[in-house]
């Protein structure tokens, strides 16, 4: 459609990862650019085609590897995790060597037949450096005992609050989202399933379990109630962050550290993402994680596996943690020593295990399509 | 007594610092057909636009039907114009085009319809054309629709801005005849702008010749043709011969002598002498049709020039000869009645004769 190739987020120097979809045109353009790069560097001994989220493509990450291995890497940026999965499933997996995406989708790529399962023993050295929570055998990426890929970035989803206006304690629950005192002061991030999950959790529904009609009806009710009180449903991170800083939004819902750390890194240390207290025994926070997998394209080159080891190594993990647009945590505990105090503070590292303990681990919800359909319906009725 | 329908006095028009009209005065009588002629840029179209109300004069006075036209917009003037490119409304049918002025005057539909039909008859257009669009008509038919639109509201003056310049010669001839007939039938005053003096002479009762923003001469076609005010007017129509002479004014007219005809002198009657005669550049105007080949003796009073046939053109009704005469800068042009027997061939030595007393004496 019109302006299909426009990348909204880039304009303001930051990218809504789960948002801002460049449309088919953008994808096509990226593919063309990728092919161009590939042909230009035809002299390189080996080439890798890499599908990834923004951040993984930073030159500071890719260039040392290309030099060291005499390889050239072509990038295809993901704009939507499900969309990226669908693209690979539709046959694009033949053209790619590596993929970095949200962990639930990487986890499925092995069983779906277009990612290689990895032998965790081959990566024992890497796992040894990870925080205990990420060590092998790592369940979130395993299917019937077989693992797909390694974890590469993570964070949590909870209310993002401007502490100049609100106390953190106010947001120990999602209740203000529905409070008339907060009418027209809430911003939902329009990032697919992400805003749905926390609201469902608040309604007492665990969206990561199989849901019946009654439970889906509860999800519908909580979405409807939230929409009533919400000022805006925003897909672009820059717009949401601007509103949060100037106080027209009291909280962003559906984001979390992904929406926070880069602001804190730039000095807005009064912006914080927290995880609400468990409600009736149901953990209200969500841990999101990205992983990198090896695509099964028939070639299965060693260099792709080398890249996997490279991307989780402490120095590279640090580069991956602090990027221009977003800042995120990494699973490698040795990277922690490389961060400055400011960076640690920006990443809210003192809070990370509290968040972990009070959170669900994000997976692909069994009823996600039903919930997305409900989201669309309720939005249309607004 | 009925006064002039148009009375223009000392009309001046400036475009910025350029002066297009230098004090033009003109009268058009009721029912008169006046032609404004002159070369491109002479100001005739500017004058027409001032009459129509599209341009405001910089100075001077303009009255139409006795009313001062200062500040009166085109819409409120008793004039109607036919444009050079006709300016028929392409999105309106023939009936709508013709009926447009009536619609603006809020004439009731039945009356308007009958008047449009009457115009159609007057212009010899078929009734089925009413529902057609201008682009579906031929050039001549469009011309008539434009005339009908201009005349339907019975204007005091009809202005025509070279409406026939784009037509082919044959169609032009027939339309010229129709226009003359139309003028006689409806009796409205017509003001026609044209650069074609022949057309003006055919159609107009009086002709106003303009040059560089000035009126050079106003007169009947016969005046303009036989008694031009100066050589510019004389040379403006067709081809003509100027024989340089020396003139001395007398009580009865003038006595002229020519260095080309030694010893001969002729008396020119006063009515054949231009009132604006000056000493410099005096010449006899000899029209090509007033010449003949002299074989044998000259007639009494006839002047004869010796020359040689340079070229001839058979035009049908007439044959044109060009005769080179020693001492004259241009060849002498002769129009002789057409004949199956050619009077002379190229290169032949001939004698060209004319009656100086039938010529017109003028200066530059």
């Amino acid at each position, binding site marked *: 459609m019109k302006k299909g190739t426009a990348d909204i987020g880039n304009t303001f120097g930051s990218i809504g990862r789960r948002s801002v979809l460049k449309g088919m045109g953008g994808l096509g353009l990226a593919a063309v650019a990728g092919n161009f790069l590939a042909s230009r560097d035809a002299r390189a001994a080996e080439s890798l085609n890499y599908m990834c989220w923004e951040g993984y493509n930073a030159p500071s990450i890719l260039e040392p590897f290309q030099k060291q291995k005499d390889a050239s890497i072509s990038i295809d940026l993901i704009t939507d995790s499900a969309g990226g999965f669908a693209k690979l499933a539709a046959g694009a997996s033949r053209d790619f060597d590596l993929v970095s995406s949200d962990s639930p989708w990487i986890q499925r790529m092995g069983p779906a037949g277009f990612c290689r399962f990895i032998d965790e023993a081959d990566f024992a050295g890497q796992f040894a450096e990870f925080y205990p929570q990420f060590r092998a055998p790592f369940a979130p990426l395993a299917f019937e005992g077989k693992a797909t890929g390694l974890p590469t970035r993570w964070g949590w989803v909870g209310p993002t609050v401007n502490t100049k206006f609100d106390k953190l304690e106010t947001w120990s629950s999602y209740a203000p989202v529905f409070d008339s005192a907060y009418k027209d002061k809430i911003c939902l991030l329009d990032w697919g399933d992400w805003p749905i999950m926390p609201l469902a959790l608040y309604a007492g529904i665990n969206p990561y379990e199989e849901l019946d009609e009654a439970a889906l009806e509860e999800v519908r009710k909580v979405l409807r109630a939230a929409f009533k009180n919400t000022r805006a449903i925003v897909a672009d991170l820059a717009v949401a962050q601007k509103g949060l800083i100037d106080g027209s939004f009291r909280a962003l819902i559906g984001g979390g550290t992904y929406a926070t750390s880069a602001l804190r890194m730039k000095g807005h240390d009064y912006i914080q993402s927290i995880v609400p207290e468990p409600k009736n025994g149901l953990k209200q926070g969500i841990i999101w994680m990205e992983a990198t997998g090896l695509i099964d394209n028939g070639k299965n080159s060693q260099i792709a596996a080398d890249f996997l080891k490279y991307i989780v190594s402490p120095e590279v993990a640090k580069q991956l943690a602090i990027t221009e647009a977003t800042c995120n945590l990494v699973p490698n505990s040795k990277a922690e020593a490389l961060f400055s105090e400011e960076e640690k503070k920006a990443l809210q590292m003192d809070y990370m295990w509290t968040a972990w303990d009070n959170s669900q681990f994000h997976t692909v919800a069994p009823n996600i399509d039903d919930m997305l359909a409900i989201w669309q319906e309720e939005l249309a009725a607004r | 007594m009925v006064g002039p329908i148009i009375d223009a006095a000392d009309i001046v028009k400036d475009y910025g610092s350029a002066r297009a009209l230098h004090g033009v005065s003109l009268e058009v009588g009721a029912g008169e057909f006046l032609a404004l002629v002159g070369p491109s840029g002479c100001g005739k179209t500017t004058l027409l636009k001032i009459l129509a109300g599209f341009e405001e004069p910089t100075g001077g006075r303009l009255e139409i039907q006795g009313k001062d036209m200062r500040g009166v917009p085109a819409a409120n003037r008793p004039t109607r114009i036919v444009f050079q490119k006709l300016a028929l409304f392409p999105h309106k049918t023939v009936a709508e085009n013709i009926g447009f002025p009536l619609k603006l005057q809020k004439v009731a539909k039945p009356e308007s319809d009958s008047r449009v039909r009457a115009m159609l008859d007057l212009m010899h257009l078929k009734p089925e054309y009413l529902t057609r669009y201008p*682009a579906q008509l031929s050039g001549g038919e469009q011309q008539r629709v434009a005339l009908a639109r201009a005349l339907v509201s019975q204007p005091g003056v009809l202005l025509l801005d070279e409406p026939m310049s784009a037509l082919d010669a044959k169609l032009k001839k027939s339309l010229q005849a129709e226009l003359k007939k139309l003028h006689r039938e409806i009796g409205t005053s017509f003001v026609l702008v044209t650069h074609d003096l022949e057309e003006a002479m055919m159609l107009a009762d009086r002709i106003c010749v303009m040059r560089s923003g000035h009126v050079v001469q106003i007169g009947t076609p016969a005046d303009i043709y036989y008694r031009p005010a100066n050589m510019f007017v004389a040379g403006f129509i067709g081809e003509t011969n100027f024989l340089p002479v020396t003139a001395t004014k007398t009580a009865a007219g003038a006595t002229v002598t020519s260095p080309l005809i030694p010893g001969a002198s002729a008396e020119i009657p006063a009515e054949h002498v231009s009132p604006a005669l000056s000493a410099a550049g005096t010449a006899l105007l000899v029209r090509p049709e007033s010449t003949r080949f002299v074989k044998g003796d000259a007639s009494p009073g006839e002047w004869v020039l010796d020359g040689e046939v340079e070229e001839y053109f058979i035009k049908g009704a007439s044959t044109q000869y060009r005769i080179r005469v020693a001492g004259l800068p241009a060849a002498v042009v002769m129009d002789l009645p057409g004949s199956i027997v050619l009077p002379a061939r190229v290169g032949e030595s001939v004698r060209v004769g004319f009656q100086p007393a039938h010529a017109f004496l003028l200066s530059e």
Partner: protein
Amino acid sequence: MQIEQKSWKDPVLIAMVAPLAIVMVVFFLIPLLMTAVLTFQTTQYYRLSWTWNLKIWTEVFSKPHYWTIMLRTVGMAVVCVLLCVLIAYPAAYAMATRLKSYKTQIQILIIFAFLTDAVLKTFGWILILDKNGVANWLLMHIGFPPEMLNLLFSPAGTMIGMVYNLVTYPMFTIYLSLVRIDRDLVLAAYDAGASRLRTFFEVTLPLSRPGLYSGAVLVFVLSLGAFLEPRVLGGGTSPLASELIRQSFETRVNWPLGAALTLVLIAIGALTLAVSAALTLRRRPNQRSAA
């Protein structure tokens, strides 16, 4: 008026038309057919399965919210067309008549407006429409109560963005058709006794119709695809068709549904165009000028 009657079998004619025909088939007809074929499939576990059934169409026709969004999209497009035309016509008229001497400068400005990134321009509106933005600041300073306008994140905000981004199209097409009108036609109307206003409605307006209609059609078609404005300025208050279709394709990975919604949008858009064409062009004269 001389239109040569040529046979469709004329080899020269076929050769001349062939390139365009091929382009149309390859780039328009085939993708459209593929889209249509897609609507009869289903997705399972984010993969397309070739099932050939009417499941998607049943879903499309049984869920009213798809139609709510489609009709809202068409409604917004119609309002956008009206606003654009109402703003563009006087502007184009002034350019073509009153501001003739600034013609070049104006044309350069319009071209710049076309070339400036729509994304940038749309984001600029946030700064103006925000509660604490420029518009409210100005209103406050001329005596209105603070935060009087609440346009950001509203359908009105979306509309402002759409009109702003699209108004240059009709401005340009109307301008082009206005400058093509022979000045003599206007004079002829004055001469026939028409006032300026009457001349405008009898001559200028009808003769500028081609530019008016082509501008309106451009705005309408582009409005149907409005994506950026509802996303940036709408704040989820006025979801439009293109966002719904994107969600279906990308987030839900339901390609058949996205394809079906695309076809519905194209059909509604084409129908609206056909109806308005039938209404406005009932008496469509031959517009060729008589000369």
